[in-house]
């Protein structure tokens, strides 16, 4: 049965639909013309063979479409507000490289949104074949403004101001306007040519030119693709120069904690045993931290999804993940990415997209219980909601980490169900215990659970 992808509707020339497990792109006459212009170029063939552009095979179109393409299914769709700094930067450079290659091949890319880029085995891949079309003489780069709003300004915000871009991109799917970015910069980078041109001058010109069409005037005035190429080269140098130096804040040093190094081998062995029992295609690692357990799942042949709220550790993991069947997702489990956008469906929630066969919840639930104040019963109900086996690490109130998480909270301000006996009783309401193992510390127990 064919169902439209709720996130693919803005471009009337090209629309993605799901045909069971198949990913199909439907094209109208203009979309087909763009595809034919792209498919015949060496640029397309080399970009696909290098893994920078998604593969596409022309198939018989259904009634009502001029053309149709089939794409390989990707392991996970993630959104820019779930990416780390290095992921957005790599995606920005890919966008610029492909635009330059397209222009040199007589083509252009008509938009510039990071939603057209996904990550496969730790590398960015451009997925919107429908964005390519033949370059029309005199046309400026239509996607320039979008590039600055959704790629450049978020990177500037992190690199120059130290503010994470993800919250903003999640709040406004169109990104930052030039005027907003100018205000965020304030007096910073006053003499930087990139800030002056792309932020301050664009903000001013946008305000001055609002509602006045100039596209045809530029064409008549002799606009050339060389002007776009010059802009692309300057933008590439600017993006390359932007850097985010993250320190050892957050959970960057988690791997060196006593309990982590002490229990790591036992937890790895327990996980391998659960993977052997379940045989999952997809493993969701909640609170993945440095990705040690996600990597075990990936090396066991599963597609691993490493989810965490700490950008620094995930950024390091992303940079080490080339060639691994491992996807990095930055989100806070206390407030995971929701379904949003047009009709509340354009971008789906991360939990819906993950579709795991096995869930890992190592070193996680005590954070939800003690730091986020989620009742233990609700944590277990939520884990049961995945409908899959779950590997859980229980941490008793006597554990050294719990004392740190409790902080200034008094015992009566904490939810019940925290003691091991109470927790086991709650487990029985939602899961059947397949196996368990007490860790060396004696305050932690691993459970391999099947949903009840």
């Amino acid at each position: 049965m064919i169902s439209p992808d709720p996130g693919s509707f803005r471009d009337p020339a090209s629309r993605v639909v799901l045909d069971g497990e198949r990913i199909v792109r439907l094209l109208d006459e203009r979309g087909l013309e763009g595809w034919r212009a792209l498919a015949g170029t060496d640029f397309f063939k080399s970009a696909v063979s290098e893994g920078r552009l998604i593969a596409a095979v022309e198939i018989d179109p259904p009634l009502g479409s001029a053309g149709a393409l089939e794409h390989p299914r990707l392991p996970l769709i993630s959104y820019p507000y779930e990416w780390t700094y290095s992921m957005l930067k790599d995606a920005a450079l890919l966008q610029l490289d492909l635009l330059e290659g397209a222009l040199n091949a007589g083509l252009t890319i008509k938009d510039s949104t990071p939603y057209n880029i996904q990550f496969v085995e730790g590398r960015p891949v451009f997925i919107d074949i429908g964005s390519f079309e033949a370059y029309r003489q005199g046309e400026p780069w239509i996607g320039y403004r979008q590039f600055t709003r959704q790629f450049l300004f978020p990177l500037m915000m992190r690199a120059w101001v130290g503010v994470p871009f993800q919250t903003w991109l999640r709040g406004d799917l169109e990104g930052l306007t030039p005027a907003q970015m100018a205000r965020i910069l304030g007096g910073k980078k006053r003499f930087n040519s990139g800030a002056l041109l792309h932020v301050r001058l664009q903000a001013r010109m946008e305000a001055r030119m609002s509602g006045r069409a100039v596209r045809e005037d530029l064409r008549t005035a002799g606009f050339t693709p060389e002007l776009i190429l010059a802009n692309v080269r300057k933008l590439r140098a600017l993006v390359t120069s932007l850097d985010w130096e993250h320190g050892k804040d957050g959970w960057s040093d988690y791997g060196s904690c006593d309990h982590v190094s002490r229990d790591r081998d036992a937890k790895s062995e327990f996980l391998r045993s659960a993977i052997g029992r379940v045989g999952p295609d997809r493993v969701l690692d909640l609170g993945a931290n440095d990705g040690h357990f996600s990597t075990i799942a990936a090396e066991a042949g599963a597609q691993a999804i490493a989810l965490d709220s700490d950008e620094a550790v995930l950024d390091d993991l992303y940079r080490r993940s080339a060639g691994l069947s491992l996807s990095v997702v930055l989100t806070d489990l206390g407030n995971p990415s929701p379904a949003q956008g047009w009709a509340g469906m354009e971008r789906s929630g991360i939990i819906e997209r993950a579709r795991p066969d096995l869930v890992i919840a190592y070193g996680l639930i005590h954070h939800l219980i003690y730091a986020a104040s989620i009742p233990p019963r609700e944590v277990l109900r939520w884990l049961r909601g995945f409908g899959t086996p779950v590997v859980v690490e229980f941490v008793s109130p006597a554990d050294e980490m719990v004392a740190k998480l409790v902080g200034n909270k008094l015992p009566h301000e904490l939810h019940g169900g925290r003691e091991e006996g109470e927790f086991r009783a709650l487990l029985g309401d939602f899961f059947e215990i397949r196996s368990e193992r007490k860790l060396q510390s004696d305050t932690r127990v691993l459970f391999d659970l099947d949903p009840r």
Partner: protein
Amino acid sequence: MIFGYLDAGSGSLLLQALIGGLAGIGVAYKAMRMKYGRRGRVEPDAVEGEVDTAEDTALSTES
């Protein structure tokens, strides 16, 4: 003429020509002359939006 589905922003389109270097400045000047006549300026009553004073000062040499 074929229009894209994306709003490119007129100011952003014109800016691209300026970023392109000397040849681009000529293109931008010509386009502005075609649109607004010899002075190549938007009339004051056409100005929309708001940019703070600090930006206006910083950009006064660019516009």
